[in-house]
């Protein structure tokens, strides 16, 4: 029983991790006032670049960072459109969701002989589980504790990032300014804060995080990229961010909930318990809807979220 719980928690953490990165991307972008529905596309591109670089270079960390860079580059398009040219941010995000996966598969065909699925990365070239030696040394490989705490490095990094993001947003000058820009950009502008620069930084960072999230999927959870690998996780991360009330810690909690549903599906699939997995998979979305309905009015979106800022206008 205890072991089963351990397995479920372990899977939960594993599946929640890519979502956490991506949701953090959503948090930083939207708190600066730019809606980023393009997370899905950025995540997909990141997943591909991670898998491809990982396969060819054999170094998971270079691959991981390359994925972040790819996501950031794609996010730059979103930033140019929505910050400089005052695009409808949702529309621009939708464009990103066509370009990201399109580019990922286009490049995949170029680098993997016409296939949209990359070749699997050698197990030694995946993101490592840094605590493996410790658990092995204690002969606890399959114990309850190992199930929970012996995770891929990306999992620990994700949780560190949540803390770092919280700290930056609420305890530093940059964080205060970025929240001000998302709440009342004109006020920030009159105080000499460069609204455009902050929004550019935040949107690009959101792409970096989404790219990392994709790579956390393709370099750790599995070891390759396929067209269906991400399929919708970017949207789930977006939902988690909203569910988490646009706060890093809240988004993390929501990602864990979504991960737990996934964990249950995987776990029950391996047991004799007959619960339709489809209904189980549906649960997090249903819960999100219900929570949104019950806690209506409690959520507080950054006031200028989604509104292009025009200097000197109005």
């Amino acid at each position, binding site marked *: 029983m205890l072991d089963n719980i351990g397995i479920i928690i372990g899977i939960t953490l594993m599946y929640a991790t890519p979502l956490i990165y991506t949701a953090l991307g959503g948090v930083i972008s939207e708190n600066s006032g730019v809606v980023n529905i393009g997370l899905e596309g950025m995540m997909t591109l990141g997943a591909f670049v991670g898998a491809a670089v990982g396969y060819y270079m054999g170094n998971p960390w270079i691959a991981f960072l390359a994925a972040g860079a790819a996501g950031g580059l794609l996010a730059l398009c979103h930033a140019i*459109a929505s910050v400089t*040219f005052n695009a409808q941010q949702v529309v621009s995000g939708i464009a990103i969701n066509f370009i990201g996966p*399109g580019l990922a598969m286009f490049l995949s065909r170029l680098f993997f002989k016409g296939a949209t699925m990359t070749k699997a990365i050698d197990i030694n070239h995946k993101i490592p589980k840094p605590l493996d030696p410790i658990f092995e040394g204690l002969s606890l490989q399959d114990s309850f504790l190992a199930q929970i705490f012996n995770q891929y490095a990306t999992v620990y990094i994700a949780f560190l990032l949540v803390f770092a993001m919280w700290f930056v947003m609420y305890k530093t000058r940059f964080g205060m300014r970025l929240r001000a820009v998302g709440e009342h950009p004109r006020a920030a502008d009159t105080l000499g804060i460069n609204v455009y620069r902050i929004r550019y930084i935040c949107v690009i960072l959101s792409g970096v995080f989404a790219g990392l999230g994709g790579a956390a999927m393709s370099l750790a959870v599995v070891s390759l990229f396929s067209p269906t690998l991400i399929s919708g996780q970017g949207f789930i991360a977006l939902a988690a961010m909203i569910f988490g009330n646009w706060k890093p810690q809240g988004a993390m909690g929501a990602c864990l909930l979504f991960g737990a549903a996934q964990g249950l599906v995987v776990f029950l699939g391996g047991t004799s318990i007959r619960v339709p997995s489809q209904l189980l998979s549906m649960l997090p979305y249903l819960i999100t809807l219900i929570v949104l309905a019950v806690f209506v009015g409690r959520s507080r979106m950054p006031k200028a979220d989604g509104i292009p800022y025009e200097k000197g206008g109005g």
Partner: protein
Amino acid sequence: MNKRKRLLSHSFGITVISILMGFIVGAIILHRTGYNPFEAYGIMARGVFEKPKYLVQTIINSTPLILTGLSVVFAFRTGLFNIGAEGQFIIGALTAAWVGYFLKLPPVIHVVVVFFAAAIAAALWGGIAGFFKAKLGINEVITTIMLNWIAFYTQNYFVTLESFKKPDSEASYAIQNTASIVILEGWKKSQAGREWLKNHPIWRDVLKTDFNWGFLIAILIAILIWYILNKTTLGYELRAVGFNRFAAEYGGISVKKSIVASMMIAGALAGAAGALHVMGVSHKVSTLATMEGYGFDGIAVSLIAGSSPIGCILAGLLFSGLKYGGSKIQYTMNAPPEIISIIIGVIVLFIAMPRLIDAIPKAVAKIMPFVSRRRGEKHVG
């Protein structure tokens, strides 16, 4: 009047320039990766226009896109962003497959029943998002994304049900023939039909496809939607709410009712897309591994259409032609067909930036006198 005309043509100009930019960026990427863009675009064009059956296939494929595009347009006119066309399409398709298989009805009546059952089910599905928005003020973008996934898993669940799932497949049973809208379906398989088609190869090719009534129905629906939006009090109310809900409320229009009605009609349109797809092409629903994308493509269609119902027909055809023609560059020149997604994405990105496109003629105008001066021409005024 003049001003109004200019505004209209202006947005049309933006669409044309955006499409052009999409092709230019696509060409640059193709060129950079070692493919001849002219060859690729040539293959794509021939892949659509060369043979009647290609053209027919493009038209067939455009049907669901036109309708999901209309769905997004309709909600958009009431100021709502219907990201949920995807889920509404699924619900429509699932209902159509269900009613098409389980009900036994005479031919035409069965089609009508399936169509309306699917549209109503999807209308209710869309209405959920409308209700959440109207009663609780929850952003429809969020709820429709959730509802998409709930619809996705609902279909996958139904396809596991014993009475519905065809054994040894990942799909439902096919709908009854009475619910099919494929043109001359019985005849083209009959002795006489085969005889005749043997001597008429063009028609044989055309009818080899899933040539069906869907496209015609989609066009009629597009005209109907244009009429509703522009010529009826319902359309007046919905547009008033879309432009300015506060003024609409002040004028005595019920904003909440309008929002729910708009989402329901949008849902019905996407559901109709699903129904026509099942009755005309797939005849069944399958276990989904990933979103099929009809709804998301519909968003792009609606944006290219400039939220005009009639524009949806053209944009749907364009989109369908791009995808169908684009798929052919893979076989003929071994180029990645995903270039089409990139081109579509770039088109949408430029449509999102009218300001950038506005700046282009100004930039050209700035450069022009410079250029002509260099040529030694005199500039007057």
